[in-house]
């Protein structure tokens, strides 16, 4: 097979939208402001506490708590301006067998009830009308007659109704009927080669800080070919090509494990992580209207990746025989945990509209359909080997061979597998490692992006493994962790040095001194005396999770009006995490208070004239060197809102833009005021420097200067023609791009690869002549650009957030039921944008982690969700009583300084609780489980 995709996003590129112009207008934007009740976001001045410099509530809070229309699911045709009022409805019927070919569909139940659909859409329509599935999502949209489904739940037909009542009744008539989809001859179960495989080999130097002997970052990652579904690795040659050298060192490590000295413990264990559902409460939906008279396609949906839809939906349209000229995407606020990132679902909404007789049509999954059809978490099998020096407890060689089951569509399976592998080291320094990740096809409904993205699986396994090893070494589990903890400046299993100071050691010390840990034996005795049928246990786990995709980019615009109003516009989407609130708050660092207006999911950045050419993950260094010469070229224009990327990466260009306005707008305006008067005014007796500037209660001061309000400074900056607006673009490949820009005659080196500025209303004629872009910006031309070398793609990760959790639990010896009694979490995340949002993420992540550790699981195949009968009556999502709602506590490590960057944390917070629960159960009953979830059945079997 060809070299597998390393990219989570490579499919976004190269999609020329021939002949169809795309427009994007989020439902929270001005275009819909009058419609959606005061807009979704409250005025910032009601939420922002000036004195404390904090948010009192989330900006979308009032809309959300009063049941306003914030989700795409809430939208009906009559809500949309210029749409017809009549709303049609659609649903999909799906194949539930992969062992027979498709014969057809039998709608006699509907016919008898007078409930035949107004339109029926099948594979034949797709073929006739040339509607092709985007390559990333292959295979086809609908199963053709005579073909066998590649996975359970494969769409067979879509039924469209022009009135709700008939739609509703028809759907209920055939919901669980097994005679609607008819099958022909028996066929073998489908088989396909793996989606891809990766191998990261590292042999460290003399010390963790010395040069590596071999690493992926220095040399290469391995991508094997496959023959008969088995990987074919290069020959092992010490002095061969990098790939051959890699195999030489892999063999060396294998020999070390096979012939380990007597003073090594070589631990071996197979770990399994299960198949789970996101259970995002807003199930997938889309409401679309194809205005046949104009050739306009309108799409309302919730998405984590609007830029993907803007690129790919017009391509589907332009390739088809439908006469479509314009494409309008209206993304709404939503929730996904990954499930609305690169999902095929919205494309079915688009198809529905093409066949709905020119009427708006709504395709909205119910929960059975959602379980059947949406992406899931990849089940992992991990074969771990870890050699440990018995005397020192130091880890020597780590080998992992993991298989990620990706189901019937490839989606992000390759990257989930390799991200999982690169996280497997958890918080430990591994001097030697050999990590192989393989993503495989199967007939289960596809797996894709899901909070944790492979790392939940691998780090939970490692954390379970470390406790088991500690037991075998008769060592305290936290002591063993401390002996191996990854410290700042060390290299990860890819050979990269992570960004900044890592603080896992601090978390370990805090955990070791916490009363849950220090009193665990006395508490165990007391609890078991009071509850003779239960066994008490304390568990701990600690992980560090990367944030970001490896290639990150975002646009951001910050504008200051003459009245002192701050307006922010950028590319991130609101997924419920409080992104819009965070973006409003982040500018306060430079502008003294939160933004008055925030626009999210914005995709129109023509002012910058920037373009991309190929995948940032695949581009060669040579091509990058060539491309970089054009100042409008960037490796990546936009990134989706996922991988915990918003707090750091999406805030970055916003902060840079605000900083430029401060330095080139507000600060000179303030200096001009302070220097007014004879002898240099009030500032003359002091030395007032820019670094002395402080915002206090919305006023700027510096070394005792008269505090000046933002309103005053904004007015003056405008009058003086200073910089009052900035659009910035930033690109990160595990480090930021940089370039020189000439701003007001002064050259500055900035971590941006695109920049445009706007001068205030008092700008000179010469300045005004430069502001020629659509929004009135002066587009600057970068000089001496530095774009991180392509080799850094092999770093796998350099940005980490650390998180550890202690848990107290009890196991009922009769029923095997586990009760989580209490837990305490330590999180390192730099400076928080809005602390309550972070703590909310901790609490929510832990609940999801408890579900993964104890409850959530589904069969993969015929008995699993693909059969269409799954709902939460058989899939247990944690309730309040199961998460220690009143007892739990957490602490966010104070930042090292006010300059620490905010870090992405939405994923890391759900991971340590999983290992902690497993380790707590081991403390309670003396058995180390290696397969998740740890259900009462499994416990009873052991007991």
């Amino acid at each position: 097979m060809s070299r597998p995709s390393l990219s989570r996003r490579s499919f976004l590129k190269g999609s020329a939208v021939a002949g169809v112009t795309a427009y994007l207008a989020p439902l929270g934007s001005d275009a819909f402001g009058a419609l959606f009740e005061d807009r979704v976001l409250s005025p910032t001045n009601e939420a922002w506490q000036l004195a404390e410099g904090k948010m009192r509530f989330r900006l979308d809070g009032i809309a959300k708590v009063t049941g306003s229309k914030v989700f795409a699911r809430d939208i009906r045709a009559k809500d949309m301006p210029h749409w017809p009022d009549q709303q049609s409805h659609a649903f999909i019927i799906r194949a539930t067998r992969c062992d027979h070919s498709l014969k057809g569909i039998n709608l006699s139940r509907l016919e008898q009830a007078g409930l035949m659909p107004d339109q029926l859409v099948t594979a034949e329509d797709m073929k006739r009308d040339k509607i092709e599935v985007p390559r990333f999502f292959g295979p086809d949209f609908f199963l053709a007659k005579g073909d066998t489904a590649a996975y359970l739940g494969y769409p067979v037909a879509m039924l469209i109704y022009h009135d709700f009542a008939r739609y509703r009744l028809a759907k209920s008539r055939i919901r669980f009927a097994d005679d609607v989809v008819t099958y022909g001859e028996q066929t073998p179960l489908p088989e396909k080669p793996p989606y891809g495989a990766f191998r990261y080999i590292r042999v460290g130097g003399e010390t963790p800080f010395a040069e590596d002997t071999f690493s992926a970052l220095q040399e290469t990652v391995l991508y094997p070919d496959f023959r008969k579904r088995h990987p074919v690795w290069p020959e092992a040659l010490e002095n061969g090509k990098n790939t051959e050298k890699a195999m030489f060192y892999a063999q060396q490590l294998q020999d070390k494990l096979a012939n380990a000295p007597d003073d090594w413990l070589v631990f071996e264990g197979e770990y399994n992580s299960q198949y789970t559902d996101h259970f995002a409460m807003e199930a997938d939906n889309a409401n679309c209207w194809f205005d046949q008279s104009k050739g306009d396609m309108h799409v309302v949906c919730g998405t984590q990746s609007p830029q993907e839809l803007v690129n790919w939906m017009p391509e589907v349209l332009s390739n088809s025989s439908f006469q479509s000229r314009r494409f309008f995407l209206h993304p709404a606020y939503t929730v996904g945990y990954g499930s609305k990132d690169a999902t095929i679902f919205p494309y079915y909404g688009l198809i529905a509209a093409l066949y709905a007789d020119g009427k708006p049509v709504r395709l909205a999954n119910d929960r059975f359909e959602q379980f059947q059809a949406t992406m899931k978490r990849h089940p992992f099998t991990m074969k771990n080997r870890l050699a440990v020096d018995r005397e020192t407890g130091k880890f020597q060689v780590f080998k992992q061979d993991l298989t990620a089951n990706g189901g019937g569509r490839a989606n992000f399976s390759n990257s989930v597998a390799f991200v999982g592998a690169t996280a497997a080291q958890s918080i430990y320094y591994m001097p030697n490692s050999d990590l192989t990740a393989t993503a495989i096809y199967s007939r289960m409904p596809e797996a894709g992006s899901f909070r944790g993205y492979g790392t939940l699986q691998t780090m939970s396994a490692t954390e379970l493994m470390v406790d088991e090893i500690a037991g075998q070494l008769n060592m305290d589990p936290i002591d063993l962790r401390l002996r191996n903890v990854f410290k700042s400046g060390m290299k990860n299993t890819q050979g990269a040095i992570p960004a900044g100071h890592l603080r896992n050691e601090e978390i370990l010390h805090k955990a070791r001194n916490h009363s849950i840990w220090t009193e665990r034996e006395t508490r165990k005795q007391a609890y078991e005396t009071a509850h003779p049928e239960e066994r008490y246990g304390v568990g701990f786990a600690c992980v560090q999770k990367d944030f970001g995709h490896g290639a990150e980019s975002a646009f951001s615009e910050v504008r200051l009006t003459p009245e002192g109003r701050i307006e922010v516009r950028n590319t991130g989407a609101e997924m419920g995490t409080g992104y819009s609130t965070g973006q409003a708050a982040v500018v306060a660092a430079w502008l003294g208070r939160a933004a008055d207006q925030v626009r999210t999911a914005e995709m129109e950045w023509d002012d910058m004239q920037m373009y991309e050419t190929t995948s940032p993950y695949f581009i060669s260094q040579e091509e990058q060197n060539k491309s970089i010469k054009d100042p409008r070229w960037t490796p990546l224009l936009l990134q989706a809102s996922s991988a915990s990327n918003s707090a750091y990466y999406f805030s970055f260009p916003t902060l840079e833009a605000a900083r430029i306005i401060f330095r080139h707008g507000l600060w000179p305006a303030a200096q001009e005021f302070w220097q007014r008067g004879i002898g240099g005014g009030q500032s003359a007796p002091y030395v007032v420097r820019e670094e002395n500037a402080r915002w206090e209660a919305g006023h700027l001061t510096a070394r005792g200067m008269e505090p000046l309000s933002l309103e005053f400074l904004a007015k003056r900056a405008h009058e003086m023609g200073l910089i009052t607006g900035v659009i910035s673009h930033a690109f990160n490949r595990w480090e930021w791009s940089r370039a020189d820009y000439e701003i007001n005659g002064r050259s500055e080196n900035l971590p941006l690869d695109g920049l445009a500025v706007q001068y205030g209303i008092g700008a000179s004629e010469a300045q005004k002549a430069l502001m020629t872009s659509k929004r009135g910006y002066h587009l600057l031309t970068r000089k001496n650009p530095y774009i991180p070398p392509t080799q850094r793609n092999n770093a796998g990760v350099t940005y980490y957030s650390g998180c550890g959790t202690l848990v107290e639990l009890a196991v009922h010896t009769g029923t095997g039921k586990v009760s989580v009694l209490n837990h305490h979490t330590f999180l390192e995340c730099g400076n928080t944008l809005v602390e309550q949002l972070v703590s909310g993420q901790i609490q929510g992540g832990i609940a999801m982690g408890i579900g993964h550790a104890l409850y959530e699981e589904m069969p993969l195949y015929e008995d699993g969700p693909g059969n269409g009968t799954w709902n939460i009556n058989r899939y247990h999502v944690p309730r309040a009583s199961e998460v220690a709602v009143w007892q739990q506590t957490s602490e966010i490590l104070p930042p090292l300084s006010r300059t620490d960057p905010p870090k992405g944390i939405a994923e890391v917070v759900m991971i340590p609780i999983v290992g902690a629960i497993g380790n707590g159960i081991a403390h309670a009953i003396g058995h180390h489980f290696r397969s998740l979830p740890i259900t009462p059945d499994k416990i009873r079997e052991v007991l």
Partner: protein
Amino acid sequence: MTTEQSKAAVIPTRPLKVTINGEAQPIEDIPEELMMLDYLHEYRNLTGTRFGCGRGMCRACTVIVDKPDGSSEEVRTCITGAHYFDGKTIRTVEGHAQRDEEGHIDALSTVQQQFLEHFSFQCSYCAPGFVNAATVLVERLQRKPISRSQLEGTISEALESHICRCTGYVRYFEAVRDAVLKTPGTTKEAS
């Protein structure tokens, strides 16, 4: 393809009379099989009450039925037919805040205000169910106060069935505790 309509369905309907958020709704013929959630969404365009599981388990679809005796109860609209509500008075999440004549919000209810200030929800899909459940609880405690020491247990019991996937429940529960404590007459000293 356009399908052949061999016969049009005759869908049995009945007139439905219901009062929602203080307003008597126009009496319409509504299909007998229709669930109340569908009525709210498709006939009244009140979409704040959310569809979660369709089996009455997640409680995102909860509304309040106000009884003539002044008491109220939660009812799940995804599993309760619209005609069950004939002649009844209900409150949905859209009806709790005070609004001006143009429908703009003047003041949130105590429960809503506490949810807001506690950053209780994230995506908010489940928030309508929590608003209604917490409101029913607060009103019940006004009628029948409990001792302060029973409060956390009472909240746990009242909200246990409501599912939230984002928040881990903590900020909802803490907000409800504050809402109760800020509402006079809901708690009493333990006897």
